[in-house]
């Protein structure tokens, strides 16, 4: 399949391609060729694109062949996309709406405060993953990749488990869900219909992206890490029984 056809099929994939540093101007190049150009693992690229394209897609194959660091690199890029681009963009539109004279001051304040508190919650959640979860996974992988890792190193990293970090994204998700309904159902209509449409469109897009992000963590990252933890225990047991 040609990469250009992929975008024709689902243009929501554009930000996903950007995260792989793939830019427009594919010409007639196929997905496989573009991946090769960018030194990307084709299977990995396809799994990510498929989970994004079809929310019910359940990745079960290939998982063992993916490096956790590959996945984390992708997840970090999606974080950067939310914090540096998408959230500021929505925030800017919301501040623009609050300059609308037809809205009551109190309504503007409610909308702005609610969005700020959402932004705060999302940022806290992302920071926690970046500062605690991802470093753990990367360290685990590097220790397992080192055939000379000592018992102490294995033992030390073995004190942690991905399941301790595994927390649901429920609160962050619920707030975004509420933001949609506040705008769709409850905020008195403003003169600036066009701008509200743009905000809603952006919020729906962000929601879809966040759901996919959570899906990738739960269905690809966590199983990979669980598998690494199993390998770690086996290696540790072997070393200890040889000692």
């Amino acid at each position, binding site marked *: 399949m040609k990469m250009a056809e992929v975008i024709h099929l689902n243009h929501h994939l554009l930000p996903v391609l950007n995260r792989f540093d793939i830019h427009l101007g594919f010409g007639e190049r196929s997905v496989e060729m573009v991946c090769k150009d960018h030194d990307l693992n084709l299977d990995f690229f396809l799994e990510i694109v498929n989970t994004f394209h079809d929310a019910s897609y359940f990745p079960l194959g290939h998982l063992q062949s993916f490096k956790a660091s590959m996945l984390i690199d992708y997840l970090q890029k999606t974080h950067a996309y939310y914090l540096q681009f998408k959230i500021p963009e929505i925030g800017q539109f919301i501040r623009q709406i609050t300059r609308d004279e037809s809205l009551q001051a109190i309504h503007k304040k409610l909308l702005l405060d609610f969005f700020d508190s959402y932004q705060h919650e999302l940022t806290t959640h992302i920071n926690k993953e970046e500062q605690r979860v991802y470093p753990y996974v990367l360290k685990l992988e590097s220790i397992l990749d080192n055939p000379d890792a000592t018992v102490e190193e294995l033992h030390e990293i073995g004190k942690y488990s991905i399941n301790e970090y595994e927390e649901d994204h429920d609160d962050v998700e619920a707030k975004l869900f*509420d933001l949609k*309904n506040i705008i769709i*159902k*409850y905020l008195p209509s403003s003169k600036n219909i066009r701008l509200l449409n743009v905000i809603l469109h952006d919020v729906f897009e962000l929601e879809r992206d966040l759901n996919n992000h959570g899906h990738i963590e739960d269905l690809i990252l966590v199983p990979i890490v669980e598998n690494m933890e199993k390998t770690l225990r086996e290696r540790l047991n072997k070393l200890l029984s040889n000692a």
Partner: protein
Amino acid sequence: MLSNMGNPYRMEELDSPIDDLEKYVNKLHPSLVMINPLLIPKLVTLPRDPESDFNPVYVGLIANTTSTRIKSKFDSLLYLNDNKHELFKTMEKVIQQLGATQPESDNTTLSERELSILKLVATGNTNNEIAERLFISTHTVMTHRKNITRKLGIKTVSGLTVYAILNQHINMEEVQGSEQGFN
């Protein structure tokens, strides 16, 4: 068969052996789970959460040799040697059952009780405080809150606060006066 019956659905297939059915059920929140119990030799219980609204209906794909003990775990049974007509009849019943577990969506106005609970939630009271104040159990408060969320489409406390102010059930000062503040 499901598509022949004209119901919209989304399907996931899980490879056997399934080690951790509960995990899948919690992740995917299916409304219907079909299982061939022969493929899960260690099937002890099917994951059900009495606290949750999302319990799936379990349908067993049953051979004649399946024991009664296994059969009794399922909500409904499809016999592998049933003819098409019988299978359809069973599935129609299952789908009716699914429909019955869906909340009614037509009723969207809050009752007096729900409204008073909404106000208390929006001004920063916890479930326990609300229960004490209204002389009802915490469990009842939670049921009311679930209904409020379902009716309004608002899940978080701060979302409910925004709703309550927009609809003038409470005013801004009441919120700022409470400990909860706006988060």
